[in-house]
């Protein structure tokens, strides 16, 4: 159940990817924005579990390694979208293609990170009390 909910972000992203080319910028922003929040919550949760001794140092290193890949891929996708928005009209199509490739790569890294996090029992619950 928890795993299913944790993967909601992926489903949302895929739906947005195929939803509409006309709203490419907006839908991509929503997808990457949702992934960024999922990453933030999951990493806070992982750090909390490590501090409590529920994740080993080896586990922490594995999470950091995959988290690094995702963070780099995500930020590269964000940069690609900024370049796309700032590109002159004649380069828009090329830059859109590059942004799309960067976004797909980011999704791949996110998927790998999720599988590592679930391996260590991180499902993305909030660390801080929210009520």
């Amino acid at each position: 159940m928890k795993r299913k909910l944790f993967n909601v972000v992926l489903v949302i992203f895929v739906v947005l990817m195929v939803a509409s080319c006309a709203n490419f910028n907006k839908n991509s922003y929503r997808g990457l924005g949702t992934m960024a929040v999922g990453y933030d919550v999951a990493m806070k949760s992982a750090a909390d579990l490590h501090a409590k001794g529920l994740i080993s140092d080896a586990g922490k290193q594995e999470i950091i390694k995959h988290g690094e890949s995702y963070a780099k891929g995500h930020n590269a996708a964000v940069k690609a979208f900024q370049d796309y928005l700032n590109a002159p009209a004649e380069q828009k199509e090329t830059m859109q293609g590059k942004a799309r490739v960067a976004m797909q790569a980011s999704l791949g890294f996110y998927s790998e990170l999720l599988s590592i996090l679930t391996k260590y029992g991180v499902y993305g619950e909030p660390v801080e009390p929210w009520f």
Partner: protein
Amino acid sequence: MAEDKDKSDTAELIAVLAIVELILKHGIPATIAIITAWEVEEPTAEDWETLKVKGPQEYFKTPPPA
């Protein structure tokens, strides 16, 4: 007309349930962040800048002793 209203009510209910589920599972701050991202209609380069994430090692830094 009534059918449209039914569809609209159903969509609203689904949205409310999705938001409640997000709050229960990820907390209020994360839910607000997701909703904020979804409310941007025409993201600018500055909007995109806010989506950048920090490195994972930042999360594992030991807090300084009080």
